[in-house]
Structure formats: structure tokens, C-alpha cells
């Protein structure tokens, strides 16, 4: 204790590396979609995740610079939401719902099966950086409970057995992109409602696949 002087110095931006021109251009287009550029913080944070695989300090600094606020203000926003992953995150983020309807229909067992099969407990990532596991609150699939998402692509009517198969499939096949229909076909069961047509777009990382962010992989890409 006592009052030795403390000296903190402003550190240069984490990587010094800036985004690719393509991402900066995309960021500019995203900002143009809003009356005020600060409103673009959330989509830009997804863009930052797509750049680095997770939300890095450098990514937040870049977002801050783009919209003209301080990095502390960006962190305040980013840390408020659960989907901006600041920790190292796997290529596949498995999110198992354990909220009320899924819990009533066996979601806890599904989650446990995923943890056991992958060896990754809640909130963590395997050594290789392949799979991250989390249990999440309601993901709006209660009619098809229990439900699981991989990179936010939904599978409904999952059983513990199917959940283990899903994990093994991810580990062995290492699909380049994650497609909801494909997973539903192999690992799902009853759905909340019928899906009309085949879903072409696929996710490539632990962030939602949405074309304006440039975070859609595989087919369906393109402006």
C-alpha cells in the first residue's frame, strides 16, 4: 500500500495493422446505411470479428476510429452484448439452449453431451481452436426444442445422441462453411415450423452470417 507513483502510458494500437481496403470499403458502406455513423458500431464489430476471428483490441480501435468515438466507448458497447467474443473463439461455436422450453424437453442433456463429446466446458474453446461451447438463453426455437446453434445456424429437435454426432462431424469433417439445412437434416428432428426452401447461405465463423457485414461464406456471397 502507499502511493508510489503509477505511470500508465498510452499504448500504440494493438497490431498497428489496419483492415484490408475491402473491409474498410465495406465499413464505409455500412456506415452509409445509418443517419449517424455511430449507429454502425454493432455491424462494424461483426466486421471486426470477421477480420480477426474474434473481437481484438485492435479491432475495437479500428471501429472507434471509423465512427469517431473512443475505444473505451466501443468496449462499453461490445462488452454489453454476448455475441462479440473478445476471447479466443473456435472456428465452430456451438451454442446449446438451456432456457425454459429447451430445459423442459431435455436441453440440459444435449448440452452435457456436447460438453462431454468435445471435452470443452461452457465458455471455453478446445486447444486447437476448433470448437467453442456455450450454453445460451432462449434462441427462439422453443417449438423445436431442444435446439442448438453452430455459428448461429440453427438445428432443432436435437437429442444427446445427435448432439454427440454433431460434435464428431465438426471435428472430423471440418466443414468449410456451416449450413443450417445440412445440419438439420443430419442432426435435427422436430422443428418449430416448416422451412420453405433450401437455405443457400452458410456461416464461416463464430459470428452471424449476414451478407452486408461480409460475414456470409460459401454460396450466397456477393453484393
Amino acid at each position, binding site marked *: 500500500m502507499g502511493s508510489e507513483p503509477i505511470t500508465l502510458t498510452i499504448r500504440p494500437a494493438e497490431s498497428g495493422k489496419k483492415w484490408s481496403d475491402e473491409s474498410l470499403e465495406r465499413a464505409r458502406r455500412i456506415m452509409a*446505411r445509418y*443517419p449517424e455513423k455511430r449507429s454502425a458500431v*454493432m455491424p462494424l464489430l461483426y466486421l471486426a470479428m470477421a477480420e480477426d476471428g474474434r473481437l481484438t483490441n485492435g479491432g475495437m480501435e479500428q471501429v472507434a476510429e471509423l465512427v469517431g*468515438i473512443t475505444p473505451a466507448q466501443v468496449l462499453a458497447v461490445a462488452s454489453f452484448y454476448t455475441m462479440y467474443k473478445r476471447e479466443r473463439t473456435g472456428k465452430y461455436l456451438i451454442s446449446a439452449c438451456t432456457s425454459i422450453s429447451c430445459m423442459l*424437453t431435455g436441453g440440459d442433456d444435449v448440452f452435457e453431451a456436447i460438453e462431454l463429446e468435445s471435452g470443452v466446458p461452457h465458455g471455453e474453446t478446445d486447444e486447437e481452436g476448433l470448437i467453442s461451447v456455450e450454453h445460451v438463453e*432462449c434462441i427462439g426455437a422453443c*417449438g423445436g426444442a431442444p435446439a442448438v446453434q453452430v455459428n*448461429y445456424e440453427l438445428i432443432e429437435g436435437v437429442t444427446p445422441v445427435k448432439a454427440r454426432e454433431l460434435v464428431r462431424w465438426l471435428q472430423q469433417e471440418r466443414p468449410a462453411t456451416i449450413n443450417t439445412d445440412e445440419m438439420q437434416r443430419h442432426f435435427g428432428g422436430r422443428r*418449430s415450423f416448416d422451412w420453405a426452401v433450401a437455405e443457400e447461405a452458410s456461416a464461416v465463423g463464430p459470428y*452471424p452470417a449476414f451478407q452486408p457485414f461480409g460475414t456470409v461464406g460459401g454460396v450466397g456471397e456477393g453484393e
Partner: protein
Amino acid sequence: MSRPLVVTRRMVDHPTDSHTLDRYQETGGYEMARRSLDMTRDEIVETVKSANLLGRGGAAFSAGLKWSFLAPDRPAYVVVNADESEPGTFKDRQLLERDPHQLIEGLIITSWANEANHAFIYIRGEYPKPARRVQQAVDEAYAAGYLGEGIFGTDFDLEVTVHLGGGAYICGEETAMINSLEGLRGEPRLKPPYFPAAKGLYMKPTIVNNVETICNVPHVLAMGAEDFKGIAHPEDTGTFLLSLSGHVNEPGNYELPHGLTWREIIYDVAGGIRDGNELKTWIPGGASAPWFVPSLHLDMPLTKQATADAGSMIGSGAVVVMDETTCVVRAALRLVRFFAHESCGECTPCREGAPWLEMMLTRIENGQGRPVDFDVILDVSDGISIGLEWPPKMTTICALGPSAVSPIISLRDHFGDEVVAHIEGGGCPFGRVEEEEVVA
């Protein structure tokens, strides 16, 4: 029993392509939007008001009345609340995925009626597929000249931005949603003074409506107020989407008229309880609503007023059914855990109180309950929602805090014995595995 379909008609009739622009137009789509541009703001607001279209996002507030409060300052904005995160609710997802043009048409009319030239569709981040579908439909609408500059050849401009959330239930609360859209933390604003219709997005007049509410708008205009009111119940007009889940044989979304009894809903519509089990309790309107029990509520009709009189709410239309095998302490704990996890942390009672409740319930479920615990739980709840009634006398900024207390009210009113049994019996009588200690 006749079941008039309004917002799900197209997807029932055309299961493979209800989401396409072609099918939408072929079934009369965008006609009402086109025609509405010849109507005045007052005409539209008046029609929606007299049709008594109630908001479907939870508060069941008259949409037309809300629009009539729009302050004169401009620009004005419209925000579609597609943040659907209330546990048990999945109806908006179906509307977004299966009939996105219906939403866009409703949005055009709503924006025109509220003199907005920029509208936002705020979709929860965990819904990338619905977002893709909506974005695709928006792109199509732009290409067709239904969005953008001078839509339908008039001089009305309308920009629509699809915005993805970041994983926060609280952003479904309209003022939190507005903060989130401004690039701020999704913390609710104080009401007063920040009523969105007066000071909303960028402090400008803003209308926030739920997806289903907006989807109803073209139909209200097409049918006219009287016919819309004639669909079913004279006060709770039109139809509404129920998301049925839990221990029923046929979970799913059902578009229903108001006024059915709970018995009809659970046993006829949802096919009864799984495995022939006994019904124990159900949540009538989303995780925030106090629960109903068969002995008191089974033959009660589902209307806004009847539900309110019975101390609960129709909320987001999410019905979660629990059978006799359910440990209600665990169910309550999961709900409280949800609210604790989703509390924005702005106000003291919700930030500190809800996790405290979660900790105590976890102990009780795990067999470490103390005799005083239930009293402490009730008293801590009382500090969040004084008097422990519904609607609540809340000590918080928004309704999330008191929502966390609804499961406690339900335990107190219907399942006190089961709580005591947990405490006295040193754990869950249903013999479930230990509940993980999570706490936010």
C-alpha cells in the same frame, strides 16, 4: 372451431414460396402499400386506431393510439422490433423467414402514416437466417421500386436498414433498442422523458412496433376497421400468433382468434400433454408473465382483460406448458437465471436483486436451502416489485426487473409447498442433477 388466418395465410397456402416477391405480388401483395400512399396520415392512423390493433410485442398497447402520439418534430423514424428473445417466443421468426414482404409492406404503410423516411428492422443477432431472408426481400423491394427514392412512383422516399443485434434480450425493450441502434449500450431510457413517439431515435419522434403488429397493418387497411374487429373478439381484435412449447404434443406457432379457453388451446390446438401426463402449470404470455394452473385458469378465455384480471398478461403470446414431471423450482430458477443474465445492470434492484434470487434458488434446488430462504426470496422480490402483484409496482427503470419476479410470484401463489419440500427434503424431490451455479 373456425380459425381465420391473417398473417400466416400465405405461408399456409403456399408453403414453398410464400417468401418470394413473385408469390407475394401474385397474392395481392404491395397493393395496400400502393393504395395507402393515396391516404392521409390521419386516415390511416384513425383506421388502425379504430380497428384496435393491439401491439404484439408484449404490452398489448393500441398501435393506432401509439401512432397518434407521434410528436411533430421531424425527421421521424420507424423501428420494427424483431428482437424476439422472450423465452418461449418464436413467432416473429416465422413471419420473418416465411413472409418477409408482408413485413415490408406493413413497414411502408407504417412509415408513410408516421411520416418517416427511414425505417429500421432490428433483428436479434442470433437470427441470421431470418435476417438474410429479410435483407433479400428488402433488396428485392428496392429493385422493384417499393423502397428507396420515390417509391411506387410517388415522391415518398423510404430507406430501410436491416440491423442485427448483438445478443441482448433487453434490446427488445423499445428504448434500449433505440440506444442500441444509436451505437450505445442497450440500456433502457427513462420514461419520462424519453417516450419514443416524442424523443426516440436520435431524440426524434420514433415509432417502435413488433413484427407481428406491423405485419397486421396491411390487413387492417385492406379489411377496414370494422371487418378486422369482426374477426374474433370485439376487444382483442384480429388474430394473434401463439408460440406453444414445452410438454405439449404439438408445439409450434398457431394463428388464433382471441377468446379461446386455455383448455381448448392446450388440449385441442396443441394436442394435449405429452405421454398422457397431467398438466401442472403453464406460462400464458412469455417468461415475464406469472403462471397459470389448471385448477384456476383452464376454462378461462384467453383475452387481454381476463388474463390481466387473473394477475398475468398475454405478453408476447408464448405459452410454455409444464407437466406433472416438472420441478417448478428448477423452472423458476431457469427463468430467474434468464432475467439475471439479461439484466442490463443499469438499475440496482434488477442488477443485484435478480442474481441474488438466482443464487438462493440454486441453493434450494441443490439441497442447501435454509428455512428462512423462501421468506428472504419473497422479500428480495418485494424490493424489485413492491407488493408482488401483476402489473407490478416496480422500483426499476424497465419491466425486466419485475419480470424476474414473476416466477417467484407463481411459486408463492401455487407451489409454496414444493419449495418447502425442497428445503426440508434437502434437495429436489424430482431427483434431478445438481443445478450449475451460473449467476449472470
